[in-house]
């Protein structure tokens, strides 16, 4: 059966089963209101914290999922922090990242040995750098948005993924991040991809033993900028 015919058949079938009519305006109003006001449901107490506690909560959960956390005072310290991390992990001093305008304010020339390649990752890239839009401390969940600033493939192809996050962008519950996204003028509509990332890639498909780096990054490093 062709899609258009199927569409009508399926919708008619739903209405028949529910014993409702397409003409019922009251129902339509209820649904449209629900969508329009997108009311919040219960928010767990644990995510209703603020300030320093948000950073600690986020850190607690990310560490629990084997992510690395580095805290820096201001974004000027970023190049040094990245270099240090790469050296410590025997990784080449070469990172893939998007053309996020936030990178323009970073003093990359302080670490000239750190090579930055702009664009979406390819198979040879071993390390990538992204800027997180925000995070929900509730479960240590980063929110990354697709786009030229932070290509989605950078979140998944390289073995090591470094994410920079402003501490002021950390929220408690997921709902606060969605609210923020809706209000951000740069995103009048949902981006193609919103990745909620709570740890490195993992699988327990072989004898329930956790192994990291199933297909996505084996290592996730989150650099939290306090200022």
């Amino acid at each position, binding site marked *: 059966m062709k899609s258009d015919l199927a569409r009508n058949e399926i919708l008619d079938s739903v209405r028949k089963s529910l014993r409702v009519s397409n003409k019922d305006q009251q129902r339509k109003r209820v649904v449209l209101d629900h969508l329009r006001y997108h009311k919040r449901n219960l928010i767990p107490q644990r995510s209703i914290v603020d300030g320093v506690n948000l950073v600690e909560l986020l850190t607690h959960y990310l560490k629990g999922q084997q992510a690395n956390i580095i805290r820096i005072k201001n974004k000027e310290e970023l190049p040094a922090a990245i270099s240090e991390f790469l050296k410590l992990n025997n990784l080449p001093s070469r990172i893939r990242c998007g053309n996020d305008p936030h990178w323009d304010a970073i003093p990359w020339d302080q670490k000239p040995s750190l090579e930055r390649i702009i664009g979406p990752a390819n198979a040879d890239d071993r390390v990538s750098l992204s800027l997180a839009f925000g995070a929900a401390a509730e479960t240590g969940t980063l929110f990354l948005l697709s786009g030229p600033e932070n290509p989605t493939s950078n979140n998944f192809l390289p073995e090591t993924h470094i994410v920079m996050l402003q501490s002021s962008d950390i929220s408690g519950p997921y709902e606060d991040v969605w609210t923020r996204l809706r209000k951000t003028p740069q995103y009048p509509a949902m981006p193609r991809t919103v990745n909620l990332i709570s740890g490195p890639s993992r699988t327990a498909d072989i004898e329930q033993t956790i192994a990291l780096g*199933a297909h996505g990054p084996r290592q996730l490093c989150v650099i939290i900028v306090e200022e």
Partner: protein
Amino acid sequence: MEPKSQFFLDRSSQALNNRELQDTFRKVGGGFAKKRGEARAALPEFDQLRDEARDIKDHVLENLDLYLEEFEKNVLNSGGHVHWAKTDQDACAIIAELCEKVDARTITKGKSMITEEIGLNDYLENAGFEVVETDLGDYLIQIRGEGPSHIIAPAIHLNRKQIEQDFRTRHQSFPADRVLDEPAQLVAEARQVLRNKFLESDVGITGANFLVAETGSTVIVTNEGNGDLTQCLPRVHIVVASIEKIVPTLEDTSTILRVLARSATGQEFSSYTTFSTGPKKAGDPDGPENFHVVLLDNGRTEMLGTEFQEMLRCIRCGACMNHCPVYQAVGGHSYGWVYPGPMGAVLAPSLLGIDRAGHLPNASTFCGRCEDVCPMRIPLPKMMRHWREREFQSGQTSAIQKAGLKIWAYFAKRPRLYHFASRQASRLFATVAGRKSYIRSIPFDSGWTAHRDLPTPQGRTFQELWEADKERQEKS
């Protein structure tokens, strides 16, 4: 996948007598159940969230037509396409056509139960495409030619040795003397093998845990990142989802996400939860050029408005089977199709018919643990009982069973006759047993006494003794 649920008895018997399989199950043990318990204990609002999740889905189902229309509208607004499929064959045909249109050769797949349900892989392979499962568990069973035995851990029935054997046989390009003793080594090899497939893929097909009506987004919940590589690298991203996956808003999705991973694996949240909306935007350096959502009915509209409507709340977490004594004993393959355990016992008869899947709702002790742990509060035992009622009404219960129950009911409705018969039977049993406290075998019974002794009755019924006591008291 050709359903074999009607062979449940044979299949479960084979599973019970398969030593290697039982060893594997023993190692799995109550691990998932333990983790789920810990996750629940760590979140005081967990049970309240389950109530809210239930209410959200109930609201959606009551307004499913309207929410589907809103979802479709928003997918179209974001530049995506929506296709509607009444049956599994319709869905397969639509997807094959989409792949043909772009001259696809290699198709990668994220983990998707719905594509198992419709038999998509076979259909596409018959049409000449190369189909690669990228979820590690799915890959492990694909190379064995098996179906999944669990809805989130499809290869849970395999042990490390079996997987090593499969890899050595299949992956010929690696040095034969390489070490594969540890799961981590096997995972690293799979990662290497599949990486090229991700990169050469023309079409990526995923399922959807949720379809968000508010934004026209599809959501996948994974840990490996394979679903994300599947849907971001190829030119075309196709999402296949049954119509009840709709959730109204991002807020509602957040609520249900809070109970999903915790119920499934005991994680607070999965490593990757991804919201996809439309194809790549102008200026995006990566992402698919085309985004298609295939909405599938395949029997769901027939469940609406019936006593099985609540089953449509299922979010495919697997908690029910993780806690089911029957599933844990016989494993997922015994159920003979895509959906095993308690949720399969309710859903399979709806989709396959009670004549084919009849054993599934009957092979339950109604212990109730499934309902106890279901994040969406689905009354699974009650619905299994409804299937038994339908069988009874349509005369599908076995003749012997029906006759036996009829005789029993005849007596049960007539207390005096019942008590008389009980007294005789009690005496008879006790006499036959003689001095033995157990009856070791009963003629024509291969059920109880095949594996257990039957304790001998005391010899007199309670009613009998109570009456005798009362008479004695009255006389004295």
